[in-house]
């Protein structure tokens, strides 16, 4: 059975990666399973300097999901390159380095720096607020997407994946803007903006009032958006958002993804990636699917 997929010339041994922000730098889940079994590892999102993140509470449970407002807590890109890449390189898997900034110049600097480091793929998080545009997220307007992606692309010497925010009216329009600006691949979806209130205290549960929704609750939204983006652009897509099982992977691939990422499901079960891969191969076996690539975009509408 052929499980390999190709993302912009980088071959992943299987289509399963981990979603940035749910997996740290791999150390914790590495105690539960061999990280070499993953197609790729999406590491915690990095910024130019260390970020402390938001005060607690940073999480609220929702029906089959969670809201989080971690606030991009990370040690900064320099320490990632120095301390984490050597650790991750012990494993036979691809490193997907997630970077972001608050200005176009910061994005450029991040992409330049990470391109010079030993990583396989760069994932650009464009859901951050643009400080020069009143804090509006870069990823929510086609002109801003175009500006930040073309600037990043000029500095990128490794394949550039642009991670799309689902908090937009027309995801296909945003996807086209990213690809027109030079995105080599797209990943989606980032979290959906949400909010919960502690009714006894009459206060928001999250310290940041609002947060990003993830988990099985968002899966149908992610499948829909991957389907729409697949119809709009031709670049590889990494589908994510609520994936838990091997059947979910099949569904996301059928919607149009070339690879997938698992995230929140690991909080419930640290072995979720291992189980999902087993289920995927079992499903392919039962359905006579010889190559996982056959499943991409296989939905018949």
């Amino acid at each position: 059975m052929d499980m390999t997929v190709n993302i912009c010339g980088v071959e992943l041994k299987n289509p399963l990666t981990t979603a940035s922000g749910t997996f740290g730098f791999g150390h914790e889940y590495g105690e539960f399973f061999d990280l070499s079994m993953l197609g790729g590892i999406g590491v915690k999102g990095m910024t130019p300097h260390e970020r402390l993140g938001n005060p607690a509470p940073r999480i609220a449970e929702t029906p089959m999901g969670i809201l989080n407002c971690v606030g991009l807590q990370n040690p900064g890109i320099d320490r990632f390159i120095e301390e984490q890449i050597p650790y991750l390189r012990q494993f036979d898997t691809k490193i997907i380095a997630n970077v972001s900034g608050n200005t176009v110049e910061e994005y450029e600097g991040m992409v330049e720096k990470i391109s010079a480091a030993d990583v396989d793929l760069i994932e650009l998080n464009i859901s951050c607020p643009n400080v020069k545009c009143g804090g509006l997220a870069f990823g929510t307007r086609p002109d801003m997407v175009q500006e930040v992606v073309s600037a990043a692309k000029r500095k990128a010497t490794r394949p550039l994946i642009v991670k799309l925010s689902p908090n937009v009216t027309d995801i296909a329009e945003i996807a086209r803007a990213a690809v027109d600006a030079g995105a080599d691949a797209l990943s989606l979806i980032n979290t959906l903006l949400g909010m919960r209130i502690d009714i006894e205290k009459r206060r928001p549960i999250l310290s940041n009032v609002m947060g990003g929704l993830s988990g099985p609750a968002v899966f149908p939204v992610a499948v829909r958006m991957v389907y729409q983006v697949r119809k709009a652009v031709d670049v590889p897509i990494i589908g994510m958002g609520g994936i838990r099982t091997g059947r979910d992977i099949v569904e996301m691939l059928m919607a149009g993804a070339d690879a997938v990422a698992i995230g929140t499901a690991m909080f419930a079960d640290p072995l979720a990636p291992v189980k999902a891969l087993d289920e995927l191969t079992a499903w392919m076996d039962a359905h006579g699917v010889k190559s996982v690539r056959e499943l991409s975009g296989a939905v018949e509408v």
Partner: protein
Amino acid sequence: MAIQEICAVRANEYLGSGLYRMVIKTEKIAASAACGQFVHLTCGEGNLLRRPISICDADSEAGTLTMLYEVKGDGTAWLAARRAGDKIDVLGPLGHGFDAAKLGARPVLLGGGIGVPPMLLTAKTCAKNSAAVTMIAGARTRDLVVLEPEFSDFDYTVCTDDGSYGVHGFVTDVLREKITGATGVAACGPKPMLKAIAAIAKEAGVPCQVSMEERMGCGIGACLVCACALSAKNGETRYGHVCKDGPVFDAEEVQW
């Protein structure tokens, strides 16, 4: 090191007032569990996140783990419905617990409400190190007093907020009387209580360890949600994580 184990429930006894005592059979986790650590339990299909529950007691010979918990929502209600023989998915032992050696020869332990249970294994661990343990337990009212027989081996005082049982008052009132000569203080309970205890210990010059609580995600340090504001060496704020760096922190380090 954390282990994921499917464990059989041995007993799940209702103690009244929404409190339950669950005993599970778990060779691996019981054998390595230390005082102040916790386990992260799957609580049914409908609840995505696990629930962190402190370890009340661990018997490595019998291979059992005891947890005392309060039903607060859907997750703990699911847990309360388990019967002997049912299986539960347990992740543990997790976190950085109390350092019993550092508590010294005369430790004073304090628990408030559902913060009392983890102090039992702490007391036992200190006693094993030949320490003379003082335990001060606090509850809102008589019906919420737990583990009295288990603590009777120690110098034990119980107080209730409403005076319906034991000493009328807070654990801090008793601590002020008992802190002279103490070599260490360890506490688990509501944050205002821990803050008050930390202040008394600091004034008396006694090192103090506190077990903090925060809304938690993965339980192993990957998702970074259970942030606890700490003072870095340069005086600036840094966030530790209750699940991995804690739940027990040095009280001097915590930003109250």
